[in-house]
């Protein structure tokens, strides 16, 4: 117990994978291998629940007013190049860790009926993925972060490639290609700044707290700050995914099994936003200032572009995928607005998107399992045959269109309220998303749920069963809980957001001056 006390983060991070490895050893039982595989899914469910409980312990231990990184652990690793095993947790990590551990049992439970082949591997990959995600959220060593970042990629690659839909190979390749290209640039940048640390302080270091002290030259596109920001930003923007780097997402989502889509949308995409907040912004504030406008514009464009393209999708999953592009556009807009209100909203929007898009994919999965199609036109009038499903679907739809009282509103409202200070014009463009968001969601909802039952196959679809209710209820509670009592989250988030803003804006004054100089020089 004492060990657990002092190594809580490490324990939480590695527990799922260890649990999964132990699960492999459960005897398959010669007589009835199918049964044994059934054991695996319960085993996995229990494991993810235990992880969730561990994260509750983390939550209880975390003091909002305390030091920046808490429950930190440092073990030297590759000292020659300054790499160490260094984990710790602040408000930014905390809520994404909780989001991950909260959604994992739900994703596992949502897979019970859908996964029929190679269950053992499937659940092991899920658990490995959880370890990768948790690790990335608590890593304070930039190289360690990179390792976890890459580790996540592998299970996801297989989850799509093995248990995916018809075009899974194409989708998983595209996913892999995009992400690898992005992360390579980031890796180069990581080594560059470690080297800079050696130049400035005499030793290599990958520890974030060391790197925050670096003085890197800014000003101009070819300055190190700007290029480094782009190198990191490229990797994160692909992950977010930010328009126009988003085209891997619709394919990956459509082909991935339900749990894959849930985790991909709900957590992996957050890695992008988190990366910006943890690394790209505070490490390269001048680079950020140089590229701020570009990213804000891309964010605003993504909101509208994603909404429009979502509107005309014939496949529900693709629609939800493009809606992610739109919703994550808000996150980018909020983060790059660089003020407390917008940044808090952006962070909150990441959590919201995890909850509501995760829930949407689960809902799509539920009707997919019954009908084996995701074409919107194959449905119609489902409300009549599945009234409980209709209630759940409606609530999640409302969360997605950011109705006040649901979680979505808090995020979008704060983002736009804050970004108005930075750019009224872009905010006005982004706020159009409020209209188009309602258009694509409600239109889809209408075509799937309302009207007469037009297809014979839909006439006796079964309504939600107990397991499915169990999957959806926590999400619905989260939708309203986070909509009505956001302070529950803010209380343990605000100090970290303040630090984030302070670090990211510290050089802005200097930068603005030099940018002006630059502009004037250009003008001549």
């Amino acid at each position, binding site marked *: 117990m004492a060990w657990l006390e002092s190594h809580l983060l490490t324990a939480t991070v590695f527990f799922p994978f260890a649990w999964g490895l132990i699960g492999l050893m459960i005897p398959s039982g010669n007589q009835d291998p199918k049964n044994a595989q059934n054991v695996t899914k319960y085993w996995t469910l229990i494991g993810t629940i235990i992880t969730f409980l561990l994260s509750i312990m983390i939550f209880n231990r975390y003091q909002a007013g305390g030091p920046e990184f808490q429950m930190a652990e440092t073990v030297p690793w590759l000292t020659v190049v300054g790499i160490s095993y260094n984990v710790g947790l602040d408000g930014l990590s905390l809520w994404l860790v909780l989001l991950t551990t909260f959604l994992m049992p739900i994703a596992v439970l949502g897979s019970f009926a859908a996964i029929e082949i190679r269950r053992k591997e499937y659940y092991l990959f899920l658990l490995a993925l959880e370890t990768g995600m948790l690790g990335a959220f608590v890593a304070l060593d930039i190289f360690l972060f990179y390792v976890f970042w890459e580790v996540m990629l592998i299970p996801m690659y297989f989850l799509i490639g093995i248990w995916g839909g018809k075009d899974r190979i194409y989708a998983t390749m595209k996913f892999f290609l995009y992400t690898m290209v992005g992360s390579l640039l980031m890796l180069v940048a990581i*080594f560059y700044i470690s080297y800079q640390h050696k130049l400035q302080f005499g030793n290599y270091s990958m520890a974030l707290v060391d790197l925050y002290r670096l003085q890197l030259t800014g000003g101009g596109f070819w300055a190190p700050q700007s290029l480094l920001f782009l190198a990191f930003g490229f990797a994160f923007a692909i992950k977010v995914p930010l328009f126009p780097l988003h085209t891997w997402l619709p394919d990956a989502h459509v082909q991935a099994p339900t749990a894959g889509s849930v985790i991909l949308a709900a957590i992996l995409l957050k890695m992008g936003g988190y990366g910006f907040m943890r690394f790209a912004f505070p490490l390269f504030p001048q680079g950020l200032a140089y590229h701020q406008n570009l990213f804000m514009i891309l964010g605003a464009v993504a909101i509208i572009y994603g909404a429009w393209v979502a509107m005309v999708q014939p496949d529900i999953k693709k629609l939800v995928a493009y809606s992610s592009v739109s919703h994550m556009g808000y996150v980018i807009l909020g983060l790059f607005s660089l003020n407390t209100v917008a940044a808090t909203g952006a962070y909150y929007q990441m959590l919201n998107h995890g909850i509501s898009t995760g829930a949407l994919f689960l809902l799509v999965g539920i009707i997919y399992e019954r009908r084996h199609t995701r074409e919107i036109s194959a449905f119609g009038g489902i409300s009549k045959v599945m009234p409980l499903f209709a209630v759940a679907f409606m609530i999640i739809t409302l969360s997605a269109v950011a109705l006040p009282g649901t979680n979505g509103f808090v995020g979008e409202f704060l983002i736009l309220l804050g970004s108005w200070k930075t750019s009224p014009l872009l905010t006005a463009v982004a706020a159009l998303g409020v209209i188009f968001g309602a258009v694509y969601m409600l239109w889809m909802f209408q075509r799937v749920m309302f009207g007469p039952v037009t297809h014979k196959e839909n006439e006796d679809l079964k309504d939600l069963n107990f397991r499915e209710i169990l999957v959806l209820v926590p999400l619905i509670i989260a939708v309203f809980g986070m909509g009505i009592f956001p302070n529950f989250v803010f209380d343990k988030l605000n100090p970290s957001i303040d630090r984030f803003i302070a670090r990211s804006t510290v050089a802005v004054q200097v930068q603005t001056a030099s940018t002006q100089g630059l502009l004037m020089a250009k003008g001549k």
Partner: protein
Amino acid sequence: MLALIALFPLIGFAINGSWYAFFQAPQGRTKSGATIPGIIATTAIGLSFLVSLLLFFELKGLPADNRVLEQVVFNWMNIGGFSLDVAFRLDPLSSLFTLFVTGVATLIHLYSIGYMSHDATPGKFFSYLNLFSFAMLMLILGANLPIMFLGWEGVGLCSYLLIGYWYADMEKASAGKKAFIVNRVGDFGFLLAMFMIFEKFGTLDMSQLRVGVFALAEHGHQLAAADLGIITAICILLFVGAMGKSAQIPLYVWLPDAMAGPTPVSALIHAATMVTSGIYMVARLNFMYNLSPTALEVVAIIGGATAFFAATIAIAQKDIKKVLAYSTVSQLGYMFLGCGVGAYAAGVSHVITHAFFKALLFLGAGSVIHGMHEEQDITKMGGLRSKMPKTFLTFAAGWLAICGIPPFSGFFSKDEILWQAYASPHGSKILWALGAMTAVMTAFYMTRLFYLTFLGTPRFKEANGDDHGKSHGHDVHSENKHAGIAVHESPMVMVLPLQILGVLSIIGGFIAIPHMSWIEHWLDTVIPAHDPASLIAAPSMEWVLMSVSVVGAALGIFVGFKLYADLKKAEELKLRFAGLNKLLENKWYIDELYEATIVRPIHALSVGLWKGFDIAVIDRTVLGFGRVSQWSGQALRVIQTGSLQHYALVLLMGLIASVGYLLYGLA
């Protein structure tokens, strides 16, 4: 205590909602009576009415310049530099609104017990009604703009859910969606206005905002041009929100379609309460509008134009509910006209009298539709006076009230608006003329409706047998269209609300008698009254104008009677003006115009972006990169095909190379 007003309907929603979700929905489509959920819901909103009444008297007992009750329920959001409470504020204006909203809502809930008695999912229906009441009360009581906005979007949601209540009919579902989306266009304006307010004044609380605005105006006598610009922008953006919710040009198009909902919903949401939110907001923020003549002018012109425009359409509609819907749009225009000339109290008075008589008219129409077994076409009615005597009597009260015949309620409030449109410093003769012409048209189309429905001879085939009450379910359409219609009077539970509203329509106007208007006096602290000296017309004109409008209304009624007494002649007239008639019947083709200029282009653009950009440009570029490395790989004959391992290997080599360079070369 204050929170209780909103809390009761929320509890009612929770009870009925859970009842539906846990017991009705899973067992599926089992019919169950509307009585129990109806009583629960009616009790919930009735309790809220009682609390409103109590608090009204409490407010009345306070000294006039200190009539405010506040309650902070909890802190909603608190982050650096921004804090927002869930807080309620009861002042004379919100008190007035809570009173009539909960009062009318209680009557309509009661009525619904009868109207929805054959519905399959009454638990769902009544939970929606309660949820609506909750949201509406949040809108009214909210002390800050985001809470108001919560109610604002909440009522929009309930409107969406209730319009599409019979969702199996795609047209009804579409009408609901249209309402939501058009309202969202308005909400876009509301949101931007909130952002501007927060940036300029640093608060979203309405009483702090008032202080801030006054501070701005006190710096000099004149506002700085920049400040004035901001205030004007805020006011107009807020008014965009009001255009959506209160169905003004150009965002009125959803309201007529909203008639797809059950009739009690049309009465409650789309006539008496929700659609007046825009007027409430403008009146609430009058301190800002007063500073911006431009914004006021916009409000007045849009209001006047909408009043006139909608009245022209109402003349040619055949569906009893559509006529009433356009009449609602038109009357809402009146209210904005009143606000736009600075006569907020007159606008508010009209909100209240309109709530009485329009709820009455809708419920009366519902009673007719109920009695006629789902027939809504007034050209297929006639002579219902003897068949439905109670409905007829109450409907007549509503008809006279909306026509503006003294001393029925509509007369006083409408006349005050017309007088102010003429005489207020913001008014003009044109605005007055617009309003007066609308009044004549209103009298005419309402008379047409009244005559075609209740008077003359029946134009439907009557059933011989007296089988009423047996075969009319609202989900069973046109079951006995061919068998003839056995018209019957509605049950007591429906007639009683009609009678109460009938009485209110007759006497309700006395709270708004010009010059001794109780309402104006009561609202004094929220809405400072006009200085009589500022009027730009002689007081004697008031009597002249009043006579003109009464004569106008009488003329409208007279023409209506004359014309529809002889239907053949009316037909002939229609043929003579066939073109105009077609234009009006098709609502000036505004829906088609929007479809062609907004909906379809955006849809086409979206398809274009998806196929022409997402797939054709971005994807091809990315895959192009992939292919380049594939070719180079083949050229090097390292690996034969573009398999993943190949990419991985290439990437790995690149990785090792760069790492090696960085570690070794640089160090």
